[in-house]
């Protein structure tokens, strides 16, 4: 096992603590040997006879990919089946989402780790060719908010997000913010502008890494990214977080207020949520097996600790597909509202 991780006991203890504070009581299924036995009983005959393909629609090495590989690893631990991650990239996720919705076989050998970014693709870019409803969620993985950061050497290093919004109101178009066009990064900034009357200069980038480069080189004033992308810079004090887009303050960035706090609102919440899904129509017994395997993986305290290190938050309360579907339905409703209000969706 990896020598740079702390000892198993410490990990489990820390994981339990995190789970208790963040997600509620751990369910009985999280106890490792019981879970393995239960899953073994659910295993259908002659299945799986080949590796299960875990699809990720983003490039290898990125945030989604890392989460997926961790989930796959723990799935393997609980089921003994082989799970291989496959990156189906292209079009900012559109190519992979379309394939999953339209072409993926519902035979139990194809699963996907997807994020709520699929809703935007489904509602705005699919143009009727497919819908996110074609994919059935089976296990929740984690979620995280987006962090807004400024350079520690830049002109805004001592400003709060509130100050920056005021600046953007006073001098519209002078505060440069990095965004990923067509994603929640862009919508987040747009909503902030709407509710505050500020006007930012939105500079498009292709990913978190280029926007961090731009921020460090003083080519933008505020950059948006996930915790995993900024952690190293925070540790070395090159970047300062000014806000987070989640409902509550992030445990890893305690000093950064939420967007709601800075703006005096309660509706500016943007999170990336990740879960495991299968194409609709998988035979019930195989689906139950996959559900049990991935749920057990997600509930595993060690995996929770790994997620914690990546800056994401698990939630052991969402331990059945029904609860997950309900939660995601709520997210879809909020997003649809936003798109309708901003005229993107008729």
């Amino acid at each position, binding site marked *: *096992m*990896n*020598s*740079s*991780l702390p000892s198993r006991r410490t990990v489990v203890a820390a994981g339990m603590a995190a789970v208790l504070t963040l997600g509620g009581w751990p369910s009985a299924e999280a106890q490792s040997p019981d879970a393995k036995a239960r899953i073994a009983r659910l295993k259908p005959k002659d299945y799986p006879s080949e590796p299960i393909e875990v699809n990720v629609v983003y*490039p*290898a*090495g*990125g945030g989604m*990919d*890392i989460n997926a*590989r*961790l989930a*796959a*690893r723990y799935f393997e631990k609980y089921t003994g089946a082989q799970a*291989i*991650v*496959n*990156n*189906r*990239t*292209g*079009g*900012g996720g*559109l*190519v992979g989402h*379309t*394939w999953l919705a339209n072409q993926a076989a519902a035979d139990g050998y194809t699963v996907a780790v997807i994020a709520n970014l699929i809703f935007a693709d489904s509602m705005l*870019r699919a*143009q009727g*060719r497919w819908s996110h409803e074609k994919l059935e969620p089976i296990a929740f993985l984690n979620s995280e908010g987006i962090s807004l950061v400024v350079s520690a050497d830049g002109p805004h290093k001592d400003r709060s997000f509130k100050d920056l919004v005021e600046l953007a109101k006073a001098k519209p178009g*002078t505060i*440069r913010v990095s965004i990923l*066009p*067509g994603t929640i990064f862009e919508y987040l900034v747009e909503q902030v502008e709407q509710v505050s009357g500020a006007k930012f*200069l*939105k*500079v*498009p*980038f*292709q990913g978190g*890494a*280029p926007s*961090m*480069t*731009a921020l*460090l*080189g003083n*080519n*933008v004033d505020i950059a948006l990214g996930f915790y*995993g992308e900024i*952690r*190293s*810079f925070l*540790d*070395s004090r*090159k970047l300062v977080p000014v806000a987070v887009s989640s409902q509550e303050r992030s445990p890893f960035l305690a000093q950064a207020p939420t967007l709601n706090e800075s703006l005096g609102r309660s509706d500016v919440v943007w999170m990336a949520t990740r879960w495991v899904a299968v194409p609709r129509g998988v035979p019930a017994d195989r689906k139950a097996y996959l559900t049990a395997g991935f749920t057990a993986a997600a509930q595993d305290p060690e995996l929770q600790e790994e997620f914690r*290190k*990546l800056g994401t938050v698990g939630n052991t309360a969402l331990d059945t597909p029904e609860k997950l579907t309900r939660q995601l339905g709520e997210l879809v409703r909020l997003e649809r509202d936003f798109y309708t209000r901003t005229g993107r969706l008729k």
Partner: protein
Amino acid sequence: MEALQGLLGGLSVIMTPANLYYCFIGSLVGTLIGVLPGIGPLAALSLLMPVTFTLSPVASIAMLAAMFYGAMYGGSTTSILVNIPGEAASVVTCLDGHQMARRGRAGAALGMAAIGSFIAGTLSLVALTFFSPLLAGVALRFGPPEYCALMLLGLVCTVLMIEGSAIKGVMMIALGFVFASIGLDSVNGTERLTFGSTDLAGGIELVAVVIGLFGVSEVLINIEQLARNEIVATRIRNILPTVEDWRMSWKPILRGSGLGFLLGVVPGGGPVTASFMSYALERRLASDPGRFGHGAIEGVAGPESANNSAVASGMIPLLTLGLPGNAVTALLMGALVIQGVQPGPSMMTEHADVFWGVIASMYVGNVMLLVLNLPLVGLWVQLLRVPYAILFPVILLLAVVGTYSTNKNFFDLWVMLAFGVVGYVLRKFRYEMSPLVLALVLAPLLEQSLRQSLVMSPDGFGIFVDRPLTVGLLALSALLVGAVAIGRLTRRQRPAPLAHPQLKET
């Protein structure tokens, strides 16, 4: 010196049997991937990444990195032997490398590619060892305007690379820009030229284009003729480069190392651009550029050195800043993060053993690859004796498998076929393929950075003259264009060629 201390520490980390073993495996697999057309380092690394979960961080990254630069060593093999590039970064090696093979000099070409790669890789690593922090600062200075100017320089080099008809070459460059814009607009996300197809919305995969344009079309062109058995009927001379070869190659190797190093540090540059620009540079600097395209060894030494150098320097933004410059380094970053090592400014202090261990492993890996590849030259050269009847079917099969393996996407296979036919037709009409490929590589970043710069800029195009680095790069482009223009003008002064005596029409 601190860097030297760190490096020695790293060497002590890497010099364990386990770590050396994984470094060797990586080199071996990397060479294999490079040799096989179609399958590239990205596909292979993502396949083998899970293997590294149970290894230590140093062993994991040592193995994965060795696969990356190992592929640069192996990529030239099929380029030289059968005119089919193993990687996008080995496309230019086809131009002169294969011509050398046809003249019985495959051994010299392969040997020089391996040795040049080693020298460049090692030099690049030395610079990395001592100048990382400084270079990291330079990488940060590159914002959208600088990228735009750099890509413009690349475009100028592309135009300079055109050998035959200038008009046809420009058309190929324009066509490259067209193919690059198929997909989603990177700046506002709208679909461009996709005609409702989601497959096209994902853009056109570079690997499929390269394999189609150079691989499939090569086979199509060759089967036109019935009367050919082997690629080289004449005796194969000289397994290794001669003294004369060295005399001509040592400067291109050094220049390629330097150029590749600089282009690798900048996120968005990389081995492909480096190899093309090195080729253009060598051709421009040669005293008799007419030799290029007919077996000039500089055309192999320079680009092969440049692509290896770029791989090494590409590690700088990754390790020192935590900023991956291309898809492969992004994957390496993921591998590090999963191991619990966060690359970035704190890595040198928090995980010094991993930091220096990885760098030391690259020195070791380069030596291993040289030792691996040089004796293989003799083996590869024998491949030239294999009849087309056996070689080409295998190559076609490998092309199909390799292209599919990149994205597991059937659409890529259709792209490969389409470009195979297009490449065949265009080559018959004497259009060059290299400018198309280079334009395809440069266009996305050129367009994106141009539009980003204009969005960022308070005064429109003024942003390009406000920033010193941008001005410097633009001046360089202007200088190159000027030098070529002057060259063309002075050539016009020479007397026009004699008109032909009228020959009787048969």
